[in-house]
């Protein structure tokens, strides 16, 4: 599903440049649930941004579902993001003047799905994350866990190939964190490919594979026994 070869990325900070990713090689199959771990500054967010086409690599290859991702124009990148990827952010990033339903329907709007169909589909995904009764609520009227569930519904609404989650539990207490992870696991059970960036050990162990980043290189990549989040809920 995802294949990256020898990925390099550096940032210019005034006169000296900061080499953040120093040759990453990495492959994700369909249906995997991968945790990308590392301390802050290890390059995990940069990697995720490149995977999410929000940022571009300096060198190296990136193939997503057989499509080479290189030298994209902003328009093309927007198209690919919409078609291939779903984002889940640490700070939820819901649009605060739109209701939960409208937020979920947003990717479908950019796919030019007709309004009525859009609403139906969005409602289906809201139901799946258990927030159907909150469809008309604004983000400010929802709890943190609920917001993240709306964000997950939104990420899934466009039926992307891969879900990218950047510290999805970073802003949540542990109980809600497990609830969210439970949801992510269930979505993965349905066959969706998910990448989770986290620095929390227990969250990482709820995935099926852990990739350890340190100073811009992968130091460890192992399959693990998945801990089900259900038991903590």
């Amino acid at each position: 599903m995802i294949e990256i070869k020898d990925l390099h990325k550096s940032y210019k900070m005034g006169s000296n440049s900061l080499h953040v990713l120093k040759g990453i090689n990495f492959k994700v199959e369909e249906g995997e649930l991968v945790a990308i771990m590392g301390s802050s500054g290890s390059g995990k967010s940069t990697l995720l941004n490149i995977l999410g086409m929000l940022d571009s690599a300096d060198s190296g290859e990136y193939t997503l579902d057989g499509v080479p991702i290189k030298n994209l124009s902003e328009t093309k990148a927007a198209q690919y993001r919409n078609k291939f990827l779903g984002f889940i952010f640490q700070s939820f990033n819901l649009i605060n003047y739109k209701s939960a339903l409208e937020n979920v329907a947003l990717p479908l709007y950019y796919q030019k799905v007709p309004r009525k169909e859009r609403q139906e589909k969005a409602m289906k995904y809201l139901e799946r994350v258990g927030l159907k009764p909150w469809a008309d609520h604004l983000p400010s009227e929802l709890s943190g866990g609920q917001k993240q569930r709306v964000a997950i519904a939104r990420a899934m609404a466009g039926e992307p190939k891969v879900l990218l989650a950047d510290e999805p539990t970073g802003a949540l207490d542990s109980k809600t964190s497990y609830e969210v992870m439970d949801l992510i696991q269930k979505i993965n059970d349905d066959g969706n490919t998910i990448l989770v960036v986290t620095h929390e050990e227990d969250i990482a162990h709820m995935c099926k594979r852990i990739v350890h980043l340190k100073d811009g290189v992968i130091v460890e990549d192992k399959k693990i026994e998945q801990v089900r989040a259900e038991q903590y809920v």
Partner: protein
Amino acid sequence: MFNKDRWLEIIEVLTTNVWRTILTAFGVCWGIFILIVLLAAGKGLENGIKQDFGDIATNTMFMWTRATTRGYEGLPKGRSFEFKINDVQAIRDNVPDLRFISPRNQLGGFGGNNNVVRGIRTGAFNVYGDYPEIINQDPMAVTSGRFLNYNDINEKRKVAIIGQGVKNDLYDKDEDALGTYIKIQGVNFMVIGTYKKSNSGGGEEGQKEIFVPFTSFSQAFNRGEDVGWMAITANDGSSISQLKDKIVEVMKKRHKVHPEDTRAIGYFDLYEQYNRVESLFGALKAVAYIVGIMVLLSGIIGVSNIMLIVVKERTKEIGIRRALGEQPWSIKKQILMESIFLTLISGMVGIIFGSLVIYGINSLLDSIGPVDMFMSPSVSVGVVTGALTILIVSGLLAGFIPAQSAIRVRPIEALRTE
């Protein structure tokens, strides 16, 4: 364009900070208001001045004789002379492109003695000896009967057309004037028609005129071949101002006036006066546009500023949208539409307020009666459409820089803004 979600969003964005939106809108509203009111005031002044020209064909000159100031061909200076009726044919033969040449004679005049009698009533009126063409140069509406025709001229009929004012003075209210006789300086004329000039045609005095055939006038009042003055109108394509020198020259030759005697023949070039007024109002209109658009411009800069702030505030939101796959062009369109919508709505409010003020002034003018040199200020539909076009263009301009800066933000940077 007519996308429900887009419009909902525009409304949403503009109503999140209502006071800011209103204050911004006020700038544009004020600009367009000034523009409309200035243009209307200019139009009012123009209407007021043009009223003095009345319905008179403006491509017209009037010409009369005065005493010569130089001797010529053995004739002394200070000599008086009169135009003759055959001068008309001479002008027609020598000067092309003239539409009407009306020789005229006149009795009475402003403040003159009572010269018209009917039964026990008398009045002082202007009595003109005229050819039928005069109705084209000095338009009037014939309210009953008919105007002069060439049979009247040829047969020297003693008939008269009287103005509404004359009828009011000499007749009872319900009396029918047609077929009755009035005595002009002792000579009986039969009334064959009445006229009314539009209000602008010389005011009250314009309604107190009597027109009789030129030939019968000459005979009845002993003018012989003399012509008091002439009203000459040029064809639509050519201007009387250019032809007048030629006409005067022809007259000088015929009446043995020294070619350099500039004072023997007097004339008044209505067209030149009219043109002068026209160009004055052209300049006035230009000033109104410049001032209005300048004021509008500061309003538009205000809109542009606010849109920049809106973009800044929404940086994160724009980032989210782009991460979700919104096209850059779509974001740009959104910002531009917000800007156009804001300018257009506030501009329309300005137009409405301007129209209300104009309406108020008009009804005030109506209630206190006519004011000198000012009449029915108004703006045409053309001006309003023009103003709306200016608004749309300026909305586009105001939104352009903010829209550009909105799509310049990379989604990753936008998302980093916390």
